[in-house]
């Protein structure tokens, strides 16, 4: 048992930190740091992918033959941590972390050749079309149908919570190709171009002023049959693979570490009754608890990365990461909001960029905190709600 970090990793960290510092444009970094919206602006996101790609680091976690860096899980962990710490735009996770691994694992040569470079080079934004109005936690009940007619699938149905669909060039969809088998067996994984006739996207106004979540209506959409990934009827298996492949992503550990540091800055910067918010014993106790919990989460991530053996199926650890990761995102965003006190109530619109210039009263950390905290209630809902995760845990860990 060796719990100390390999000293070589410190050298690696220094190297990637210097690398990010040298390639991340200062204005882009500043836009990211001060953005009011929860999500990065699409142009920055794609530009950043192109910059990383120029250095062979846009999809470091992929196999080397498809453009990966051949790094160990710990090196990837450090690279991601440094990206977030540096306020780099996030990856377009849909492409790089969800579709990409499914494609290179199950996709045909044609699909790999066509789409992997597009993702790697930051040429496209991707939408994930899984949930439907009637199929949230019960995803296997999804009804969007794809009927094979000649060499095309004819797709009809409706998707919802399709993040970023309004800006996406392509989407990957779970569709029903067979209605006569067990629900999970009849699902397939289909790539659809978002400007295909019959695809309509409606942005959904959110409680934080953004409209990132979308509805996607599919009305007799014709999709070339060779855009179906792998075998028909295997979509459910691929979707499960996708979720299990990214077991540690749902922890949001890198994001939460950066945001907790920001909560600390706010608590040190804001005064109440002549003292710093950080010096209020109740606030300090809550902050200490969140930081300790975040350390626990980080070690739980490291345990998964190192494939530690423990007394339950490995997938149980993934549910722990999702539950604690989402709860901590919410606690940390609320620490930011509560450190701002009533100032957190001011509504900052996501539309005008950049946000208003900081003043003595309104520090540059104020805009965006509440916007993010409001939409962050989603963290315990998407990707398998907290309740579903607890059902899974009870089954995996206790056989209930």
């Amino acid at each position: 048992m060796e719990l100390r970090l390999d000293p070589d990793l410190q050298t690696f960290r220094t190297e990637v930190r210097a690398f990010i510092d040298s390639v991340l444009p200062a204005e882009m970094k500043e836009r990211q740091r001060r953005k009011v919206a929860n999500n990065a602006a699409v142009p920055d996101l794609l530009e950043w992918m192109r910059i990383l790609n120029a250095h062979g680091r846009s999809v470091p976690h992929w196999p080397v033959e498809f453009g990966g860096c051949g790094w160990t899980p710990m090196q990837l962990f450090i690279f991601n941590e440094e990206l977030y710490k540096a306020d780099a735009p996030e990856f377009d996770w849909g492409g790089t972390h969800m579709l990409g691994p499914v494609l290179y694992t199950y996709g045909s040569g044609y699909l790999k050749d066509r789409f992997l470079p597009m993702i790697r080079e930051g040429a496209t934004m991707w939408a994930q079309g899984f949930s439907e109005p009637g199929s949230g936690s019960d995803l296997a009940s999804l009804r969007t149908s794809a009927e094979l007619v000649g060499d095309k699938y004819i797709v009809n149905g409706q998707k919802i919570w399709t993040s970023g669909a309004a800006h996406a060039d392509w989407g990957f969809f779970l569709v029903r190709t067979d209605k006569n088998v067990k629900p999970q067996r009849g699902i397939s994984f289909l790539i659809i171009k978002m400007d295909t006739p019959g695809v309509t996207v409606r942005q959904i106004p959110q409680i934080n002023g953004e409209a990132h979540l979308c509805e996607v209506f599919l009305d007799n959409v014709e999709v070339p049959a060779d855009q179906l990934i792998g075998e028909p009827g295997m979509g459910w298996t691929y979707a499960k693979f996708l979720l299990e492949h990214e077991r540690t992503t749902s922890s949001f550990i890198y994001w939460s570490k950066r945001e907790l540091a920001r909560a600390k800055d706010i608590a040190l910067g804001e005064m109440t009754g002549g003292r710093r918010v950080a010096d209020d014993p109740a606030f300090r106790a809550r902050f200490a608890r969140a930081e300790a919990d975040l350390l626990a989460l980080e070690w739980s991530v490291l345990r998964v990365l190192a494939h530690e053996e423990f007394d339950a199926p490995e997938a149980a650890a993934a549910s722990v990461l999702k539950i604690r990761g989402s709860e901590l995102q919410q606690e940390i965003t609320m620490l930011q909001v509560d450190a701002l006190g009533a100032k957190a109530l001011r509504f900052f619109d996501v539309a005008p960029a950049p946000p208003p210039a900081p003043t003595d009263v309104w520090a540059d950390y104020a805009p965006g905190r509440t916007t993010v905290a409001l939409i962050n209630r989603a963290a315990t809902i998407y990707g398998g709600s907290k309740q579903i995760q607890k059902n899974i845990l009870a089954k995996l860990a206790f056989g209930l």
Partner: protein
Amino acid sequence: MDFAKSDIQTMLLDSAERLLSENADVEYWRHQRSSATGFDEARWMQFAELGWLALPVPEAAGGLDGTIEDIALLNIALGKALATEPYISTIVLAGHVLKQSADEARALDLLGEVAGGTLRIALAHQENGAHPLDVEVTGTSARRSDDGYIVSGTKIMAFDAPSAGQLIVSARLEGEEGVGLFLVPADAPGLSVESYALVDGTRASDIVLADVTLPSAALLIGGNRGAAVLREAIDRASIALMAQAVGAMEAANKVCGAYVQERKQFGVAIGSFQAIQHIMADNFVAAHQARSMLYHALANADEDEATRSAALSAARLVIGEAGQTVSRNGIQVHGGYGLTDEYAIGHYFRRLMCMEKQYGDLIQHGERFGDSIFG
């Protein structure tokens, strides 16, 4: 980073499994609680035979020179079995003080006795109203005499003192800086001892020292090193304590998992109800995070004092609360049976409550961690 166990760790855990699993039940615990010392002295000698008592002892004293990870793994096993033996006080805490003491030859002799199972040592440091993480002593003083020291003061809640042959007493050295750590025979003239049981069946003593006369050699560590060594020793005790808590939580979860499958209401196992399933999921999450924090504390155990104590207090915060979550929820899913002395969960509950409050409680560790963040 590697979580795989070394050969010695595997051997240790195998022997722990063999010896402890046969006596990890309510009948055994109830029997021990009513015994003279609160634990089985014959089993303590088996600990010695298996080398467990020699684990942190240097090779020069016939020990195994084990790492803090080795100690933690063994203590996870002790915690699973709710062992009440004074392992932490004697082996981890006093063992560390002895290893650091000035007179190396004498320390090795004492450590040899400890490793052999013939000597147990308890720390008498806590004073009424003092902060448990504060090593500066105010209520106990040592003044020099012609051929040694005369020590006076009052200590409370010296864990495992009733079964110890020697005490390590902390005292302010009159006319000098720092804290002195004295080795005091438990039967020294001038000591009056009131012993009692804690709610988990372990024992403790309140001790009054009235002009206790000690030879010079009784001062194990003095001057400016005393406080630092005491802090290290208490921090190491905390790590072992957390390891026992992790073991206890994981075992309590097993007990509860089995109970909710066996207990039927409305014609079905109560574990089929989602309300119960979610409580069990919460318990799994809590115990899992607790183990993660034990690793965090271990990874920082040999860092500088500020880093070490911050990591340790963060871990005590998470583990202390996780222990309460697991055992309180555990009682809840047991219903009325959880409140009886005849079901294991109530024993885990009481032990985890004790572990949350020894060597600093949740609030005190939370404060110390908060101070480390904001200064």
